[in-house]
């Protein structure tokens, strides 16, 4: 059974104790790293393919069912305040600021710098329209919010040595059942190499929401997608909340990956239930 390590970092008050930093948690105990597992990926893919075949019975869909980490994180919920346009803008700006921090860019004003960088990358994105329609108070609130989240991140991020090969916003896409299902994922931070003899890759998701039950599913999903992407099982997967300063981190093992497969299967069952019922009905 994988052991969930919960790390809590004080962010609401100044403490004499130095807060634990993400980079230190990711490093962990080097002497206890397992050997690189490059054989499990095929079994996981086969398990997913089997489930997709059971659900779709070999039929090719015109448009694929797209599953993302958000699909799993919001499992069972119908309304999420994190889905509002302003919350989405906040998430994007905090994520962009995080990318700049990892690239060791000095942020003079987190909100302005993140917005400028985002606009440089996506000059016509709908989020920019959302921001132009906010009134003065809403903009001030968003600015304060983003600044608070980024400040929390700055305190927690630590330093990633270049030998760790930090890369941000790493994408993964896997098609299953031909093109019936598309698993899509973006991990905020990936460190480590898949080429070493020991498990070495750590994944970090940054969220602006407090950590809840969905966070564990998101962590598992990232680990699964990284395994399918590189055919190598990562060392650990983590999630950090810039709202509360909590960092959850867990080592990746076969059981965790199988639970991730079950998570995906559950989402597929839920989304495709009407399809299955119509096939069974006389």
């Amino acid at each position, binding site marked *: 059974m994988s052991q969930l390590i919960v790390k809590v970092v004080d962010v609401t008050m100044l403490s004499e104790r130095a807060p634990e930093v993400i980079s230190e948690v990711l490093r962990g105990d080097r002497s206890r790293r397992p050997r690189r597992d*490059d054989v499990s*990926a095929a079994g996981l893919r086969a398990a997913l393919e089997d489930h997709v075949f059971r659900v779709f019975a070999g039929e090719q869909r015109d448009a694929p069912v797209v599953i993302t980490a958000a699909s799993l994180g919001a499992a069972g919920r119908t309304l999420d305040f994190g889905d509002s346009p302003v919350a989405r803008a906040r998430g994007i700006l905090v994520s*962009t600021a995080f*990318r*700049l921090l*990892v*690239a*060791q*860019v000095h*942020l003079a004003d987190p909100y*302005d*710098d*993140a917005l*400028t*960088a985002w606009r*440089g*990358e996506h000059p016509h994105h709908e989020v920019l329209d959302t921001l132009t329609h906010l009134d003065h108070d809403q903009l001030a609130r968003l600015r304060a919010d983003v600044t608070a989240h980024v400040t929390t991140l700055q305190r927690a991020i630590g330093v990633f040595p*270049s*030998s760790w*090969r*930090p*890369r*941000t*916003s*790493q*994408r*993964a*896409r*896997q*098609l299953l059942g031909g093109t019936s299902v598309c698993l899509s994922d973006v991990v905020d931070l990936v460190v480590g*190499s*898949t*080429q070493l003899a020991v498990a070495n890759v750590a994944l970090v998701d940054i969220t602006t929401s407090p950590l809840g039950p969905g966070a564990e599913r998101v962590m598992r999903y990232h680990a699964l997608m990284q395994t*399918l*992407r*590189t*055919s*190598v099982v990562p060392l650990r997967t983590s999630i950090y909340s810039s709202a509360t300063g909590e960092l959850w981190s867990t080592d990746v093992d076969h059981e965790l990956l199988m639970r991730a497969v079950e998570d995906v299967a559950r989402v597929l069952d839920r989304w495709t239930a009407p399809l299955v019922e119509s096939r069974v009905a006389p």
Partner: protein
Amino acid sequence: MDGPVGGIAGGPVSALVQRRLTSQNLNDLIEGAPDVVAVVGDEHRLSLTSRFRAVPSDEHRRLDAWMVEQAGRPPGPFVWSPATARRLLASNALRRRGQVDSLLDAVRDEVAEQLLRAAKGYARAGSLGHWLAGVPHPVLGLITAEAVNWATQCLECVEGIASPWRIASSDVYYDVARARTTLRGRRDVVVETPAGRVIVRIRSGQPGKSAGPGLRADLMVETLAHPEGVAPRRYLGLWPDAGLVLGVDGSMENVRAGARDFLRAAVVQRRLRLAGPPSPGRESDEVRGLVA
């Protein structure tokens, strides 16, 4: 040696090989590449020239694998962005790798050199250096982050290759003589083996249905641009996001298929420019006439 390009209209096309993207598979694909490859001579080049000359163009046209994959539809106007700048910066940074401690430093050095070039007035309008000189500081940071990502990803893909490899100094270009046409082939890594070279191309996203024709188009340009017209043993396309590697052999069938796809793209481009979207039947008649 085989017949001229376009000398045979139909002909079989070698199968596209597909594997999961792992070091083991990559090494297998490199070591298992065929030793006998196509060699393109003067008659092939003349034949290709005559085909392209049959598709007149008012202006100089530039064709690449992307246009082949898009069935000849011309791309929109090119705009620099962190995503479009990352490959160039990352490739240059990877070549500096031995001189600096980290990839981040290498990318920063490369950005600094581009900015210096612009400051000295050596960067022409529209070039990467010219664009970088005008972007705000946070955007430069994001460009650096993107380039480091791309460089790291490239390194993760190829550092497990057992044979000697090097980052390609540039993409490969071939000017079709007297046809106002330049063909561009994309390549990222050149692997040198005793029996010949294998070319590796890295793309984001996932391969589509036209990934094979795209690889054959790049193979064709790589072959034509070689001083002696020798095709690479294999052309490998890596899609790290999808964890897949696709490859085409350096056979004459594949080189011919690449030439045919380029001609199709040229015909479609010409028709789009002259008379709007073509009807499928009419297009195929004309294409058949030109490539036969």
